[in-house]
């Protein structure tokens, strides 16, 4: 509402955030867990004077740097890029609130970059103690950046007392922070072990070395699975009621939850009975790839669920999916949705100057005097700014047209009027009754007719 809305056909702009985020977390968690793994294992290899293991760790460090410092860093910036485009109001609130948390995270990023490059490029040249210290600097910095970003994303699910006091500490020490830090730490440990496991399976032929890597990498993986479960339970217990309800009510989220538990369970069982209890038992790149695939499925699913349970909010009780602050709804409803946003108002003013009153405001009474095509077009403007955050138009991601397929105009009007009560995962309607008529006209226009041939009904048209 405050900013122009970016219309992305079929997918919807916010789904781009989901795509970039999922891709990023799969590498970002490895960047944290892999850093801790390299820190622990390099120290261990130096301590035990295991040259073969050191040689492997060096090879792994190259893969690690190539993947995390380039792909991880760019996709991380990519999330930021995308949220600014697809959800500018929420981004503004987050940046306004957490600017110094982000600045602090940036400090850790710099430490990560410098230490990662020195650790890899000066391998074999630095004294062992210094070399190990540098990789620990990396590991601790990476985990610190995870703590900060987990607390910020947790704020989006439960901002605690922040809406009342706007205090930084209320925001960062929110109730969801600890569960997310625990589960993300677990995710980082688990996922990084799976990367190591696959990398080793692909690059190592020596069975003895492989058995060592299996046993060394499986322990943090199992610990990770336990932390994910513990964090997940805490996350669930502390969820706001609406998020809990959304989790139970949406069939897709039920399926995804089952998938998440199944994937985590499968990974745990495979690792426990495979490399942990019987090192060398199943020793193939295919098995390692399968375990990583289950880990990736679990991680991606968890990210999607985390995003989805917030509906109708982008930030719980702060920013709505309809791109307005919660405390703006009453004013916007009074003033009119089209009138309240600079871009919607400008559209009306340019395209339909006849509805503007003498004082330069939209005269809501004149909206319904427009010809039908004009009403549908303005309904389309309202749809873009009020609904397109979660719904594509005719086809694509949760398209609005098919959702009201076969509905009568009265049913559509009733839905709009009681939007949040019809479905609590939708934001409250924030327009005037006249604007509800415009939106209803648009939805009726984009919805396909009732499918023909459905019984009982008219065998020819499907009509009642």
């Amino acid at each position, binding site marked *: 509402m*405050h*900013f*122009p*809305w*970016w*219309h992305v056909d079929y997918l919807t702009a916010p789904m781009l955030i989901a795509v*970039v985020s999922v891709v990023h977390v799969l590498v970002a968690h490895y960047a944290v867990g892999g850093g801790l793994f390299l820190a622990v294992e390099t120290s261990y290899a130096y301590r035990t004077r295991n040259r073969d293991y050191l040689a492997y760790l060096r090879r792994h460090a190259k893969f690690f740097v*190539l993947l995390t*410092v*380039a*792909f991880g*860093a*760019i*996709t991380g*910036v*990519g999330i*930021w*890029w*995308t949220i*600014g*485009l697809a959800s*500018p109001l929420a*981004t*503004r*609130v987050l*940046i*306004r609130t957490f*600017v*110094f948390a*982000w*600045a*602090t995270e*940036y*400090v850790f*990023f710099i*430490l990560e*970059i*410098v230490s990662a*490059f*020195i650790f890899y490029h*000066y391998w074999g*040249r630095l004294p062992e103690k*210094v070399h190990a210290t*540098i990789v620990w*600097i990396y590991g601790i910095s990476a985990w610190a950046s995870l703590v900060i970003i987990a607390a910020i994303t947790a704020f989006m699910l439960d901002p605690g007392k922040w809406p009342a006091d*706007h205090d930084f*500490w209320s925001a960062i020490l929110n109730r969801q922070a600890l569960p997310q830090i625990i589960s993300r730490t677990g995710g980082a440990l688990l996922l990084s072990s799976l990367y190591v496991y696959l990398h080793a399976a692909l690059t190592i032929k020596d069975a003895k070395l492989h058995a060592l890597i299996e046993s060394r990498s499986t322990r943090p993986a199992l610990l990770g699975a336990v932390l994910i479960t513990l964090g997940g339970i805490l996350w669930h217990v502390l969820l706001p009621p609406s998020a809990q309800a959304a989790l139970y009510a949406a069939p897709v989220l039920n399926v995804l939850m089952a998938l998440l538990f199944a994937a985590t369970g499968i990974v745990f069982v495979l690792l426990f009975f495979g490399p942990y209890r019987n090192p060398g038992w199943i020793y193939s790149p295919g098995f390692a790839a399968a375990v990583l695939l289950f880990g990736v499925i679990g991680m991606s699913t968890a990210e999607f669920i985390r995003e989805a349970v917030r509906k109708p909010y982008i930030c719980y009780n702060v920013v709505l999916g309809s791109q307005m602050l919660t405390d703006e709804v009453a004013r916007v409803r009074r003033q009119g949705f089209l009138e309240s946003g*600079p*871009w919607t*108002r*400008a*559209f009306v*003013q*340019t395209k339909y100057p006849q509805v503007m009153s003498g004082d330069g405001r939209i005269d809501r009474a004149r909206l319904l005097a427009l010809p039908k095509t004009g009403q549908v*077009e303005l309904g*389309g*403007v309202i749809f*873009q*700014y009020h609904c*397109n955050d979660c719904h594509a138009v005719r086809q694509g991601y949760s398209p609005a047209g098919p959702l009201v397929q076969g509905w009568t105009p009265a049913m559509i009007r009733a839905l709009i009027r009681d939007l949040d009560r019809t479905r609590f995962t939708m934001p409250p309607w924030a327009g005037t009754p006249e604007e509800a008529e415009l939106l209803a006209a648009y939805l009726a226009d984009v919805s396909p007719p009732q499918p023909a041939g459905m019984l009982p009904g008219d065998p020819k048209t499907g009509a009642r």
Partner: protein
Amino acid sequence: MDPKTLVDTSMALGLPAPVWFIELFKWLGFSLHAVPMNLWLAGILVSMILYVRGSPHGRRCNARLMAQMPVIIALGINFGIVPLLFVQVGFAEIFYPATILMAWFWFLVIVLLLPAYYGVYLYAYGLAGQGDAMPRWKRAAGWISALLLLAIGFTFANAMSLMENVKSWPDLWQRHSFNGAALGTALNLTDPRLWPRWLLMFGLALTTTAVWVAVDAAWFARRESPAYRAWATDFSWKLYAIGAVWFAVAGAWYSLGTWTPETRQTMFQSAWAVLTVATAAAPAGVWVLLWLARKREGEIGPGWASLVGLAQFGVLGINAASRQVVQHLEIGPYFDILHQRSETQWAPVAIFLVLFVLALGLVAWMICQVAKLPAKPDAA
């Protein structure tokens, strides 16, 4: 349509820090980011041309620059976070609409950056592993990276000029929208400021690359021959001359040909004229320093190179300050950050600053560990 009505200043969120703090960190962050960004913007292209021209020293310079480039790009991306963060803190009202109008192109920056970065890695590792026997496709990766990074620079110039060019928003929006929502396909191509702005940045990037060649020769090329270091000093001076002339021409076009009369009057006739003169003249100072190094010693020494490096950072800093002032003047009629309300919580600021200082200490410690190392035994 009055473009001013498209800038929504109704949100009463306030600023999380005083305006001076935001401005200071935006300026400092951009100045720091400009160093590695300049190096990848012009450095890769220059380095690839040096290889094609085929002189042994030129090829050596190409190898050195490209081997350093992965680290330079990593630092540049991270240094870029700071100015972007503070732009969004202070200028959200104009930054978001501008980037949303050109959303797909802005998004493309990330998409292009990935192959550009991996292209540099391919080239650098190819060079390290195979030297001149590197296959053509790896060589091509270097060229592709250079072109992609130039395209990314152009997109940035587009976004930053669109942010200042609020009066072009209504037309771009109307031509690139669907039911009032932006399609994200608008580019600010008709803005007269766009091309000189991009070219000016490229000229500046040439000068920074020139200085880096000299600094690298003095500080990090201990294993290279004295003849290479002398060549690098000479090349640095010549490249700087080209960059400075380029910068002067593009700068004159930008300031005399595209600024509004009000901006011109302020930047040329008020106290800000001192900054304008400093911005224009500063590169000449660095060029003189390089000329003196070349004339006096043949090859540049570490002390003099450090002085040149600091002076170039000053050039970038003055340029960033000047552009920040112009940005204020251009967006002033639509948005005024100076009158924004701020509600500062100093504890998080203090934690950030303390950690920042500690981190700088740790970085310095790590670099010292590397600096203490003897040269590689297998060195050339």
